[in-house]
């Protein structure tokens, strides 16, 4: 580094510091004026909205080939058309139902297994090897088998989501359970809590951050698995719409569906976070010491 650049940096330092403090003050002021949730939403939407604005500008004024890249306006028009025709609702509801059932059943099984295997040594010995073998198997690769065994109906599709999210959800839940503070378990013993009380009042609440983290990941996986599940011979659902769009080379169609997936994924993630906040209020009540 030359003396000149050092000089320049030294001169720039107060300016940088001032800018940093302005940014901090801006953040603080934002938090004060719109609240923590408001500032979260405001800041969180900056990047997506910015990208969208850039795309829109390029399509409208920058000569972007909208046959290949579509445009926000095309997407919006398409959305309105499909909505008014009731097509989005029809297919969307079916897809959403598949995701929710798959996510609900899969995560319930996984969390249950994670809790009992994490808590009872014997059950861990019984279940864990099987789950680990299963974990190493790519569930998506089994889809054709499901179709052969269980047909092309709803069952195969939901089964793919269920089996797809179980391994990771199980592993994270299990990790949360075995990491429960042994001292609290000892306390439960000393104060005569039954096994059931210990699990429900000590173990699961302690592992709650892990469990909810697992559920958030599982909710995202559910949507990814849905795409696979709906990719083979769909008759209804977003997957069907996407496939039709692909046959007809409708970029706007495909992008719209991708966008809807994204928004739904965000919605489910937000919902899980909200449930976590409501169900574990004590995690917000910690003094820093």
């Amino acid at each position, binding site marked *: 580094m030359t003396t000149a650049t050092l000089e320049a940096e030294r001169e720039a330092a107060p300016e940088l510091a001032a800018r940093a403090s302005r940014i901090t003050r801006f953040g603080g002021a934002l938090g004060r004026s719109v609240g923590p949730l408001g500032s979260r939403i405001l800041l969180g939407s900056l990047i997506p909205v910015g990208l969208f604005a850039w795309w829109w500008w390029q399509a409208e004024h920058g000569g972007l080939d909208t046959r290949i890249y579509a445009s926000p306006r095309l997407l919006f028009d398409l959305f309105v058309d499909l909505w008014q025709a009731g097509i989005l609702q029809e297919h969307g509801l079916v897809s959403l139902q598949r995701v929710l059932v798959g996510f609900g059943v899969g995560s319930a099984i996984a969390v249950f297994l994670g809790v009992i295997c994490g808590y009872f040594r014997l059950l861990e010995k019984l279940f864990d090897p099987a789950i680990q073998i299963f974990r190493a198997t790519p569930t998506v690769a089994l889809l054709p088998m499901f179709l052969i065994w269980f047909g092309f109906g709803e069952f195969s599709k939901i089964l793919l989501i269920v089996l797809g999210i179980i391994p990771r959800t199980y592993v994270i839940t299990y990790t949360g359970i075995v990491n429960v503070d042994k*001292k609290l378990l000892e306390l439960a013993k000393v*104060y005569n*809590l039954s096994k059931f009380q210990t699990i429900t009042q000590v173990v699961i609440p302690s592992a*709650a951050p892990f469990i909810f983290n697992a559920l958030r990941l599982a909710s995202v996986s559910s949507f990814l698995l849905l795409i696979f599940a709906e990719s083979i011979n769909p008759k209804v659902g977003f997957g069907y719409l996407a496939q039709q769009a692909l046959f007809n080379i409708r970029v706007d169609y495909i992008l719209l569906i991708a966008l809807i997936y994204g928004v739904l994924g965000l919605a489910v993630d937000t919902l899980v976070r909200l449930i976590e906040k409501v169900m*574990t209020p*004590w995690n917000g009540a*910690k003094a820093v010491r």
Partner: protein
Amino acid sequence: MTLVESSPVRAENKVAARLARLVKRYGDRTILDGLDLELERGQVVALLGKSGSGKTTILRLLAGLEQPTAGTAELAVSTSIVFQEHRLLPNKKVWENVVIGLPGSRSALREKARNLLREVGLEAHIDKWPGLLSGGEAQRVAVARALSREPGFLLLDEPFAALDALTRLEVQALTMRLKDQHGFGALLVTHDIDEALALGDRVLVLREGEIVLDARRDAPFPRRRSDARALELRGQLLTLLGVDLANY
């Protein structure tokens, strides 16, 4: 660890706990090798010892948290325990922690918890999450929780060690006041000589699994930490614990 208001300890009404030919080994490491000890009701017995001397092991054997390799550790009265850490469940409100594991309706339990919290001066915090309490407050809640079992004997595993010096004095004084009101005895495991002298009716020193000193303190409470007997004992204890201040 419930009421052991039962036969194994013979009906000597004075005895609260008895250890008989107690042996505890972890692997090939022997912690206790045939220890005999009787603890009396209503007495605070301070058990001093260096780390690894086996003092916490004795307490944990009495609490039923460890099983003896041989011999017996029995309690003749109901007991509860206060640990060095408060061990409050973060997901339960303060009052729910106080009455944890007790049977009864929520309203009755809450009332019971309220009374106990009043005794430790924390009634105002009844509906707080434990995460918002200071260290001293949390430990006082832990004391209230121990009292909720109406114990005849308290097992205290260095319960004041993690507190700052001023808070420690407060919680010590509170515990002794509660002892006077409730009449429980206690086994106080500690490595703090002054604490042992101030609180103990009887001071034991454990060294390599053996009791090497068994001294009575009959001065009335509150004890001055500097009375002649205390100073004499203090010197003795320091020597027994292998602390020779002249070497420093």
